[in-house]
């Protein structure tokens, strides 16, 4: 029998590819909310939540689903240079390349956007906006004021700072979609669906509620943490399947391996 645990562990590599998107009840609800918000006359839409709650995944899914029907652009990595950011906006709007030696004049860009009002509606999806400077955020706000350009921005929600309290967001953001960690049941569904999507039905059936409870105790339903946990778990499975196959049961999930994973990731002290 081939060691298929290598393939299983690769399912849980953290990525935002649309193929890896798992449709959970909460995710579907948030996606619908976001999609409907695009049809409203809003200037900016804020998507926020703690790291690993699926913000980037949701944005990516939205981009791939709407790219055929709308003018939509996705900046998956933050563009920290203002010059580069304006260039990318201009190139997206005009579909023309700006020579390297030239820079985009912001006032000109604003005037250009104002001329397009009522003719076009362009959506920009900006990920990791907490890394953008205040000055750049101010320019994004001014661009959104033209009502030609609409921004969906994602931000990390931290414990010490609540972005809504920030003055410049308070008045401009009209729709806030908050993502949170999955519940125990959602986490179970997430893992099962991920495995079934790739054809590992047997392994999916091996995972029982008590195993999910164990994983949830340490990951609190955070998708990134859960992916990391399962990747490590199946890495351990892969090793034992190769070196000590008698220790691996294919009928039931090993508590020993779960505990070893928690030890390896530092969730418990050995």
């Amino acid at each position, binding site marked *: 029998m081939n060691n298929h645990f290598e393939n299983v562990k690769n399912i849980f590599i953290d990525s935002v590819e649309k193929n890896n998107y798992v449709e959970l009840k909460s995710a579907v609800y948030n996606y619908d909310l976001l999609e409907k918000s695009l049809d409203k006359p809003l200037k900016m839409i804020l998507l926020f939540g703690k790291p690993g709650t699926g913000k980037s995944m949701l944005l990516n899914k939205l981009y791939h689903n709407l790219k055929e029907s709308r003018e939509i652009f996705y900046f998956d990595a933050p563009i920290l240079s203002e010059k580069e950011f304006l260039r990318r906006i201009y190139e997206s709007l005009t579909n023309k390349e700006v020579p390297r030696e030239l820079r985009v004049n912001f006032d000109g860009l604003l005037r250009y956007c104002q001329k397009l009002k009522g003719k076009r509606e362009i959506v920009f999806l900006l990920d990791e906006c907490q890394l953008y400077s205040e000055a750049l955020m101010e320019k994004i706000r001014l661009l959104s004021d033209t009502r030609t350009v609409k921004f969906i921005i994602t931000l990390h929600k931290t414990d*010490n*700072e*609540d972005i*809504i*309290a920030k003055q410049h967001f*308070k*008045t401009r*953001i009209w729709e*806030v979609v*908050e993502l949170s960690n999955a519940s125990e049941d959602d986490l179970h569904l997430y893992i099962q669906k991920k495995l079934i999507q790739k054809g590992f039905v047997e392994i999916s059936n091996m995972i029982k509620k008590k195993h999910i409870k164990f994983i949830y105790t340490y990951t609190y339903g955070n998708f990134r943490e859960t992916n990391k946990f399962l990747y490590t778990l199946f890495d*351990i499975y892969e*090793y*034992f399947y190769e*070196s000590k196959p008698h220790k691996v049961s294919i009928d039931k999930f090993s508590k*020993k391996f779960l*505990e*070893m994973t928690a*030890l*390896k990731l530092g969730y*418990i*002290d*050995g």
Partner: protein
Amino acid sequence: MDNMRELERRWYFYKAKQSLLSLNAVGLVVMFSLGGYYTYTKADVIKSLFNEKTLIAETKIKVPKTMVEPVLVAKVITEPLVKSVKATEVVLTSKNEGLAHATLHEVSLEPVIPIVDMEKESHKKTSSKRVYKHAKSTTHTNKRMVKAKASTYLTASELSTIRKEVTVLDSERTKKINLNGTSLNYIGTMKKKFARTKKPREALLLAKAFYAKKDYTNSEKWALTANKLDSSQDESWHIFAKSKLKLGQKSEALKILSSYYKKNHSPKTKALIVKIKTERL
């Protein structure tokens, strides 16, 4: 490969530690269960240990064989009060001690007027043995035992004793100290305290103080400071929005509260939104 071996070794160590902890827990549970069981089953023994003195006192009481007349201790106490008690119930014989205990117990359940003759009480600091000695003769017992008074009025000496106690209590009564200060002092003190501690609580108290003083610009400023330090406090949001409202920015206040309500679903926030909307604030 080595990493996995090391990990497995760590796991064995972890399991050993877990087993040890479980054993300890089981040991503790067993210990407590046994302790509880022993206490429950031997409750009488333990109780008797506490009542040892009483028992000793009781055993010292010996009824002289020569005594022909029954000892009417209980009868003497209750005779003036309860006439319905039959004579046979209170008759104690030296041969039947069990009966004596039973009747004493019964008689003690009869009502006794809770007024004590203070003069006689002061002399009555005797042990049970002494009571027994007095009980030997019926005439003495009548004098010594506490009798119910004919009326419920207090004697002069009793009244004086009570008055003394009341005056003692009056002197012990706590006195109120006025600790009021000016609001200016308060704000100054709080600002200093905030500069030192940088705690959201102080900022919030300052916001409240300014709001109470109708200085809405400052209350808004301090509410925002409190919010930046701890955004989970409902009150910082509320005071911030209320200040905005007082500064004539009603729509802004509503927008802030609505976005906050979406997040925390606090009934207080909702109530405040309704109040602002219906202009009841």
